């Protein structure tokens, strides 16, 4: 490897960590009335780090260091790009919403950044303890963020629920890790893979199940999904967006690395693959079917994101270069499609104080931009061309069919067409109903930018997916080296 400086390699993490502290300090030092600059400060930090990371992806040095504890390959950098983009979009779309929160709002951005840092650590982790530390950093930040509306009973309830269930899932994950450590005497993924070899013992079976269950909780795979709708509904909408998009992607980053490096060794492969297939199929089917009767936009998006996780799992099942590339591609466009939908939901929640789908009535007349963005985002999630979701699903399902899993592809495509039903029911409310008595809620400023930007990305990638596909390919390739 070319010589490199550990600080240049870790610069994004360092900047995010220090910025998180600085924001906290500013919040304590600057008097309450004059803290207007928190949001721009966070946004510009993220833009800076994002640009550096983008440069880093293509030209920066790549290295594995601290004896394989931390990896700085294109795969990790790709996911960091994804988290930073998601964090930036959340910050941009949350300005007005956070403005209305209590005086503690400065902690919001600080916590958002620390959650982002946790995700970045997860993406780079080359061994299980580092991964776990990153995961906990992210999760604990989210415990606070979810319960951020201190005066809102639903938000507090969601916070407690997330805390209890998250704690339980962490315990399961840790138990899995400890079993692996007991079996192999190591927590490093490469060592685990070589030590485990081909023996399928009850202990290794249990370890696989526990690891998958712990990560499956974060990804909200069926049957570990039950927390998601309640917590998504109770949490502040921007937090829900971040939780649904970035935390899920972070867990995917870990899952991919762990699965490919360790589970794909013979001992784990049979158990792992069977489990993944069962989880993915039930997630795709149940996530989509339960989404149909939802009347709350956040619950609808929660179930839709459960279903989306099922599609992403399909790429991991394929386990091939093309499959991982599909996962990476889809995860990125999922950020933009979901962010568009959540930005509109945030906007409506903030202006009308409601998350009910029926309160989107006549949005076409009351806020044309929001209605069009919502439609485009939902249709991209549904996988309707020419939006990016179609290209993403195409990559995923082509990869899995190439490995001979035709039934999964049929289930996936049919379920994604079923999903059109509930996505369109939102579109129908926005376009068909007149929405009499509801206020005009035009979008402005950073919110409008977020909405239009996400929609443009979704459309452009859908029409010309090549650049992103090449990036995803490079990232996936770095994992297979």
């Amino acid at each position: 490897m070319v010589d490199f400086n550990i600080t240049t390699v870790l610069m994004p993490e360092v900047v995010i960590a220090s910025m998180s502290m600085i924001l906290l300090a500013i919040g304590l030092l600057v008097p309450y009335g004059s803290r207007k600059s928190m949001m721009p400060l966070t946004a510009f930090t993220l833009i800076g780090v994002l640009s550096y990371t983008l440069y880093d992806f293509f030209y920066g040095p790549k290295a594995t260091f601290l004896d394989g504890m931390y990896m700085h390959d294109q795969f990790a950098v790709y996911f960091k790009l994804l988290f930073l983009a998601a964090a930036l979009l959340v910050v941009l779309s949350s300005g007005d919403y956070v403005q209305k929160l209590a005086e503690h709002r400065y902690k919001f951005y600080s916590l958002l950044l620390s959650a982002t840092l946790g995700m970045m650590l997860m993406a780079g982790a080359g061994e299980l303890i580092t991964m776990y530390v990153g995961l906990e950093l992210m999760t604990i930040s989210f415990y606070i963020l979810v319960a951020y509306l201190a005066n809102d009973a639903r938000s507090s309830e969601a916070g407690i629920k997330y805390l209890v269930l998250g704690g339980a899932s962490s315990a399961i994950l840790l138990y899995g890790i400890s079993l692996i450590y007991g079996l192999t005497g190591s927590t490093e993924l490469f060592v685990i893979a070589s030590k485990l070899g081909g023996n399928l013992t009850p202990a290794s079976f249990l370890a696989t199940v526990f690891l998958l269950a712990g990560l499956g909780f974060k990804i909200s795979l069926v049957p570990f999904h039950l927390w998601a709708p309640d917590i998504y509904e109770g949490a502040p909408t921007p937090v829900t967006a971040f939780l649904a998009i970035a935390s899920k992607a972070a867990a995917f980053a870990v899952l991919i690395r762990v699965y490919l490096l360790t589970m794909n060794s013979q001992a784990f492969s049979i158990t792992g693959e069977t489990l993944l297939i069962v989880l993915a199929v039930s997630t795709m089917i149940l996530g989509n079917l339960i989404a149909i009767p939802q009347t709350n936009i956040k619950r609808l998006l929660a179930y839709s994101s459960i279903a989306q996780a099922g599609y992403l799992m399909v790429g991991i099942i394929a386990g091939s270069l093309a499959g991982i590339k599909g996962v990476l591609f889809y995860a990125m466009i999922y950020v933009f499609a979901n962010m568009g939908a959540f930005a509109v939901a945030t906007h409506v929640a903030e202006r009308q104080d409601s998350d009910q789908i029926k309160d989107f009535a006549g949005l076409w007349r009351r806020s044309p931009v929001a209605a069009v963005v919502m439609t485009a985002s939902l249709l991209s999630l549904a996988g309707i061309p020419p939006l990016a979701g179609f290209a993403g699903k195409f990559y995923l399902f082509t990869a899995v069919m190439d490995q001979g899993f035709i039934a999964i592809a049929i289930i996936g495509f049919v379920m994604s067409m079923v999903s059109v039903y509930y996505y369109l029911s939102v579109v129908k409310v926005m376009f068909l109903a007149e929405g009499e008595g509801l206020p005009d809620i035009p979008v402005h400023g950073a919110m409008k930018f977020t909405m239009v930007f996400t929609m443009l990305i979704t459309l452009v990638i859908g029409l010309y997916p090549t650049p992103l596909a090449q990036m995803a390919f490079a990232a996936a390739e770095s994992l297979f080296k």
Partner: protein
Amino acid sequence: MSALPTVSSLSMLLPFTLLAPLVAMLLIVFLPKEETKTIKLVAAMGMFVSLALSIYAFFAYNIEQGGMQFTLTIPWIPDLGVNLALGVDGLSLPMLLLTNLIGFSSIYASWNMDKRVKEYFILLLILIAGVMGTFIARDLFIFFLFYEIVVIPIYIMVIIWGSSKRVTKEYAGMKLTIYLLIGSAFLLVGMIALYLAAAAGGNPTFMFEELAARQDLYSPAFQKVAFALMIIGFGSLISMFPFHSWSPDGYAGAPTAVSMIHAGVLKKIGGYGLIRLGIYVLPVGASFWAPYIATLAVISVLYAAFIALVQKDMKYVVGYSSVSHMGYVIIAIAALNPTAVTGAVAMMFAHGVMAALFFAMIGFIYEKTHTRNISELGGLAHQVPRLATGFVIAGMASLGLPGTVNFVAEFTIFIAAIKVLPVHTVLGIAGIIFTAVYILRIIANVMFGPRRSEWDHLTDIRGPELVPLVLLAFVIFLGGMFPNILMGLIDSGVNSSGLAEVLETVSQAKIGGLF
């Protein structure tokens, strides 16, 4: 494959044809929504350019040379092997012309639209461009992309501008959308399976020609499975029994222009796809399924015709009649015989023009009388003679009267198919009798009979409203009197593409297997 676009003569003709409605759409986006007159004019201008270009293409196409012409190929998604490949041959050029004829007419059929005019024409133009794209694509991926693009605008148009009669427009719109999307999910799986099989030797591609050229990579078992998946997709699109039930409800709920385009061209994508993809690429699969498909097609013809006999709503009559007529197209495709395929394409063209004219006339009647119930209407020919003329022309074309292009198409199908599928064809021909009964029944009950004073206030169609009537009726008679203009082109498409040889080898293989 070279990285540079391959260029042939007049390679920009098709992109311009495709872009004209999209440019008009963009112009409309920036027009204020009060300027309804300007919006309509811009839409009509965009479609006029497209129509003029496709008429030019129709006559500039070199029949002696045959094959794909006006081609343009740009590598699009290299890692998947997708090319933005456009081109037309004798099979797709009539469909392109049909799309533009109907698209242009549908703008004029919506001339009296006064509700959310701007959004209406934006969606309508996207819809037309999407349909056009499917017919000029030479790449399966692009073909599918364009097809799926049209589904959502149709849904929005049905729920906003549709009409609730027997079923609500929300129900009709959702039924139509879900049926077509579920069908397309199967199609997509079949398409990916085909793509992966073709890429087995490396060099992935979606190009129709390439896929067809890699015959030896598809085992017979694979062809049967892949064709079965495609028949679900294309079969629901062409409303083949038992996947047909979206069609009458959907047409009845949709606004006039959508019914015209949907019945006129959109469902022809199913037939076109079956020919282009089913027969050319998967001939063994096609010949395996052909008898079953033919049986389903005969059921479509007869069953839909019976149901049409008892309908009270005019749109349902035409809706079921289109299911019934598509049965002939499927019989012709199942006959697997070059002449029959020529007839199938001609039938799709003929039915498209006729159905569009029919729906346009019903649309005008509904607009003026606010009812489509046959029993509430009567004697309209007294008050609206021009409308009645169009209605009768559409009806006569529908029952295949000699002199109309529909007669030519049906006749070709029957001659060619009777040798291969005698029983099916004879049963199919019997369907004509029922067609005559239900068509003559609505013509007699709606247009003729004693004058009814309650309709005395109606004004006849005039000005822009006459455009669909004049244009489509002209095409019906021109094709009927000088069939060679159309049939010559289709014939060259079928012959130059080597369909005859493909079918020859398949039928020999089949005989070898049977005896």
